[in-house]
């Protein structure tokens, strides 16, 4: 644990570009050397609202991709949904604006040492970190399938360039406005039954992560999910972002999703206890 944020630092980054993509903003930040320490699954904590803001807490965003080279040196991409006052402020920042960020934070997706068959499941903007992950997996010789889901097509984030690293990309929307109608979790039991997947990597709303955990339970499939809990500090000092997690002995403890996560082993999360308190300690 004490090595978790070893490489994190605070940086004033400039906005290289900010484009609307569907219902999201694709924001590219110039972060220089920092990209060398960013891994798929890590997140960034951003100060919002400017110097005189009444917002006092940073906002967390998954690092979608980093790129070492480019016209501006190392850059980091974020996919941001304009949701409340902080994310709307971020989405309104124009090219050249300065952004106060801390990164890379938290755990990263575990990368298998051998080529495996990986299924990447993303919900909404949860697809953001999956494209960077897909690239890494592909370079390791993995087979990479990606299933993305959302309520509607405007909430699917699937950039053209990202598709290069993916063998199969399937899209599901609940209203059928893009790809197939239905939930992204529906085809997974079949894949597992057919033995077509070794590891599932997921990122998206908590109910989706929970559903996948329940689907893989009992199978040999490993499930690495990136959870999303409300965070005050993002660096492990406030204890607001906790999730109930089982340890090897079956005891539940409240783990911080910012430093024991956001990537966690789905099999250990006590999904039924999220938002509740486990039985009192002995």
């Amino acid at each position, binding site marked *: 644990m*004490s090595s*978790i944020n070893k490489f994190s630092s605070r940086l004033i980054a400039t906005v290289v570009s900010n484009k609307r993509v569907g219902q999201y903003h694709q924001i590219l930040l110039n972060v220089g050397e920092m990209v060398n320490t960013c891994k798929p699954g890590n997140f960034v904590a951003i100060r919002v609202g400017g110097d005189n803001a009444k917002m006092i807490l940073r906002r967390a965003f998954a690092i979608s991709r980093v790129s070492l080279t480019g016209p501006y040196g190392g850059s980091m991409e974020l996919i941001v949904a304009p949701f409340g006052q902080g994310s709307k402020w971020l989405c309104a920042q124009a090219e050249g604006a300065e952004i106060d960020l801390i990164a890379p934070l938290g755990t990263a997706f575990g990368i298998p040492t051998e080529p495996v068959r990986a299924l990447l499941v993303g919900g909404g903007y949860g697809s953001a970190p999956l494209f960077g992950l897909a690239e890494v997996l592909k370079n390791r010789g993995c087979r990479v399938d990606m299933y993305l889901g959302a309520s509607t097509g405007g909430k699917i984030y699937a950039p053209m360039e990202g598709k290069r690293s993916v063998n199969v990309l399937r899209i599901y929307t609940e209203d059928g406005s893009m790809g197939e109608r239905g939930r992204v979790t529906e085809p997974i039991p079949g894949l597992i039954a057919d033995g077509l997947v070794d590891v599932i990597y997921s990122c998206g709303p908590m109910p989706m992560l929970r559903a996948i955990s329940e689907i893989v339970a009992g199978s040999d499939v490993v499930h690495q999910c990136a959870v999303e809990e409300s965070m005050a500090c993002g660096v492990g000092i406030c204890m607001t972002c*906790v999730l109930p997690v089982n340890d090897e002995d079956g005891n539940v403890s409240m783990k911080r999703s910012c430093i024991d996560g956001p990537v966690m082993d789905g099999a250990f999360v006590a999904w039924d206890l999220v938002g509740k*308190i486990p039985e009192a300690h002995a």
Partner: protein
Amino acid sequence: MIDLSTTFGNAWFPSPLFTASGCASSGKELAQFIDLREIGAVVTKSVMSKARHGRPTPRMAETPSGMVNSIGLQGPGIDAFLAEDLPWLVSQKARVIVSIAGETVEEYATLARKVRSAPGISALEVNISCPNVENRGMVFACDPEASRRVIDGVRKTLGGELPIIAKLSPDVTDLVSIAKGVVDAGADGLALINTVLSMVINLDTMRPHLGGKTGGLSGPAIRPIAVRAIYQVHEAMPNIPILGMGGVSTGRDALELILAGAKGVSVGTASFADPAAIITIQNELKELLAARGFTSVAQAVGFAHRPLEEPGNNS
């Protein structure tokens, strides 16, 4: 050169800037961002006798210039704390103030007994803003008699060595009388203020947002309340050292609390926005003191209580 050093009872600190309890966990996580030896002291998250899960999530809501939290004292319990967290802090050469919290007068005394024999502790902060299970859950710090009994129990168990800093709640009618009570009972110093009891309602669920329903308000929003509390208590007991806290996020804020009467200043919520905030604040404070002609922090403590000489042209 500005002499930043300060003392609480017989404990000496090279800087008046401390972490705030519950806002630095046990120090390790913050050490990724700052050198713990550079600050006055690490005040640890309040520890209880047993391990605790704390309150259900959501545990926080941001509010204008503030936040409301309801963590519920999640923690490993005193034995694990003394076995793991404390030795690590000591190995880092950090100065440590251990914060303890209990549900009964007895629990506080038990905690004090365990802490007593642990090496490397500079002072004990006694967080009495906890529900007293023996009195309908009334918060100790809101009950003069219970506050006094907690500190009395801790003092007796501890003996005379370790300074005791009693941490008070602002949610009381008469803060000064509670402060006097705990000082009479043996507190060497006072920590002011803990969070202000608050609530946020979620407009989607239309119910209290926090898992624990109510929570504590912290951050810049409460700074004027903290300044008032520190000023009032320093006015009543100028010789009792006060560890001030509440919304400090710049050197100016720290100076404001010091002028009101604080001998030390804890930085809480500001560390969430920037884990290195305490270092920035410390540097800013140094410059502000120098710009005002002070050569030490000590000279500035309680300065706001001095009468202002009438300027000649204004009589």
